[in-house]
């Protein structure tokens, strides 16, 4: 592809590629094989394309690929390398927080960025944190259960006293 050079890290792996000024980060990532970043609307309304940059959950359809130049990008595939990410994956599986799974990669990423702030576990706060990510299958309960369980464990590990 002709265009501008773009260098970034995705899940700890160096990517050296090119992009066009108008290409979204979502399209760039999918074109480079990161198909775990899902495309549900391309308008920032569904959250399926959520990734993490600088500890922040970002909807990659709303960011230009060039804006990610030099950044460290994390997708759900990189979560196995991170303790909280791995725990979230396991918790989603064990709580049955997955049905069709199309929202799952985005939800795990938004949950990870929320848990990175070491919050006091609170179901209502979790709901707020994930409210930009739609799920049509589960009714959200098992998703909140899964995130809450990791939040409680994490809080205890961080020295918090949780009753």
């Amino acid at each position, binding site marked *: 592809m002709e265009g501008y050079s773009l260098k970034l890290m995705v899940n700890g792996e160096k990517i050296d590629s090119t992009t066009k000024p108008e290409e979204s980060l979502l399209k760039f990532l999918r074109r480079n094989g990161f*198909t*775990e*970043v*899902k*495309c*549900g*609307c*391309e*308008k920032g*309304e*569904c959250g*399926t394309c959520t990734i993490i940059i600088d500890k922040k959950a970002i909807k990659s359809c709303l960011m230009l690929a060039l804006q990610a130049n030099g950044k460290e990008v994390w*997708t*759900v*595939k990189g*979560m*196995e390398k991170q303790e909280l990410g791995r725990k*979230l*994956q*396991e918790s*989603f*599986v*064990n*709580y*049955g927080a*997955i*049905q*069709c*799974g*199309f*929202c*799952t*990669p985005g939800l*795990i990423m938004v949950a990870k960025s929320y848990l990175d702030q070491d919050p006091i576990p609170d*179901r209502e706060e*979790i*709901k*707020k944190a*994930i*409210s*930009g*990510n*739609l*799920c*049509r*299958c*589960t*009714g*959200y*309960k*098992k*998703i*909140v259960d899964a995130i809450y369980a990791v939040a409680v464990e994490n809080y205890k590990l961080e020295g918090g006293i949780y009753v």
Partner: protein
Amino acid sequence: MSEFKVVGKPMPGDDAWAKVRGDLKYADDFSLPGMLYGKVLRSKYPAARIISIDTSRAEQLDGVHTVLTARDVPNNETLTRFGQSSEIGKGFEGLYRVLADKKVRFMGEAIALVAAKTEEMAEKALDLIEVKYEPLPGVFDPIEAMKPGAYLVGEEVTNIVCEFGCNQGDLKKGFAEAEVIIENTYKVPFVDHAYLETESGIAWIDDYDVINIRVGSQVIEHFRDVADVLGLPHNKVRYIGTMMGGGFGGKEDITVETYLALLTWKTKKPVRLVYTREESILSHSKRHPFVMKYKVGAKKNGKIVALDVEFIADAGGHIYLTPWVVLYTTINAAGPYDIPNVRVKSYGVLTNNTFTSACRGFGAPQPNVAYESLIDELSRKLNLDPLEIRRRNCLTTGKALATTGQVLKTYVALPEVAEKAWAALGEPAEGDDENKKIGRGLAIGLMSYGRFTFLHDSSRSYVKLESDGSVVVRSGIPDVGGGQASLLCKIAAEELGVPLSKVKIYISDTALTPLAGTTTATRQTYMSGNATLKAAREIRKRVINKAAEMLNVNSEKLDLINEKVMVSYDSLQYLPLVEVIKACNTAGIELFCEAQFNAPFTITPDLSNVRGMTFPDFTFGAQAVEIAVDTETGQVEVLKLTTCYDVGKAINLLSVEGQMEGGSIYGMGYALTEEVIMEKGITMTPSFAEYIIPTAVDVPDVKAILVESGGGLGPYGAKGIGEPACSIIAPAILNAIYDAVGVRIKDLPATPEKII
């Protein structure tokens, strides 16, 4: 068999791991070398005559490989079919038109196809196709469309596409006996399925001229329909179904497949086609809006004695599944109530709105809104508790449906489920905000699982025990995300006494897996579950018989458990499964089996007065809510939501709970926010910013209560739950709104401006 090892346990399937790791490849995650990108040109008008289409400029554009219009399609007009193999008569098969010619029937209807080297080039080519239209007045209200002299949507002489009736008892006499009569008209809107994965797929031609289509479809049997469009033998089109990012009935009709097949057939290159969200909302089917006129007569003690119902459903621009949905509605008109005198009359009518077809619930949620609102109104008029009025009228085991007279031979969990859902609300919330009024509502309902019995439905499944004791299952079952594939693994694991991790399933391939029928109609647990059970039990029998010979004991005393064939009364006496397998292989005993399960077969009923059995069985449920209505803004907050169903037996526990929780929230959206708004056929809500589905902050933690009566027709007494789970909640919310603020909402969704 001794107690369950796998069935009923909260064990996630292996697809769950593939999904959390981001490994699962959906339909649009697949690429092939040299592939082209497809795009669809869609009508700008809901009603127009196409005068001419000029594709020459688009064809000359660099990178464009082909531009196709109706003229290029070998068989542009065929019939809509949905995997049924029996002849069911013309009334159920409508026109399937691949690309619009003559009259355009709804906005967003496909007119031309493009395949180009890049997506951008394909998009540019669309802009260069010149379509000359003669805009026509169109008709957008089904009641108007029924009138003589109305604008005709298609080429037929009437817009009415189906008409059904049910009569029981003596309606006149029933109303004469009634001491209270209530009459209401209810309206429900267009609804979008809102699956997060839009329609997508990729197609290619293999070394032997077979068109392969890798796509997310609830009906892989459409390979036959695609072959008919191309004029190819059925065995020259192959569907490879992917796991779907949700379906909810919206991937039951053909979506991208025909377009993909045409483009790859014409260009001889692989082609990928992915709908944008806007395109998806504009072009795929919607849940039918209905106008429902209900008149009910009851005694002062609350006993309902007469019911008169008229349904008018908006079919939109094409027939698709309208006759089937409207027949469901007709049969569901009286819900789970025992009423001696009933008349139902129903119509499906073409308009120039987006076409309507299957959507989770398939004609059951609509009448449920009407009859559960009506019974709530009746209970208040007669000063009866919401539970009590339902107790006095609900069907019980052995009684017959008030519409068709179909006798309910399996356990009917009424009023049990209603009592449990209502009680589970617990103590009422203490409100300290005087602007927030608290209210409670209850609704009950029934829905069939399994297709119409006159469709002569069947499913096949193949199970094989490998020499190392692992198991292979092959089934054509499409997986929409409801755990369809892992369900079959659990049954095979249970029957063959192996851990779930040792079962591998291959699904949804029309060339390699036995056809299991559609993932629709809440039929897979029942149909493919039974087919897999039958195949696994046959192999189990062969293994046990061989082991009996080896151990020199009676086969009835043997059990297959924990990878051992054990003498049940003495667990020290056993043979490892692999040893028995070895012996079977040596003796030439087949350790594979392909089995077919057939649902009960009936003949097509008299459609003017549908009588007798039309469904294999029904699932019964109840849902209850506690809500707060903000009297200043009209905003409704659902504080508590309970859902109780007799699921027969939960084979896939997490999935059953997931269906009940997710179904409740799906129905909550129907009640409060969801409406595809069409103004003169133009969709005003083509995005998730305008079409509002519930988010995490909008929902309560659903409390799911499972009744496991074992009374279902599925494996181990299971019933279907996928669609029934969403079909009852809307009227419970409407009844709670009335309880809170005294406003009776009769047209969905119950938006703040209607409440205030």
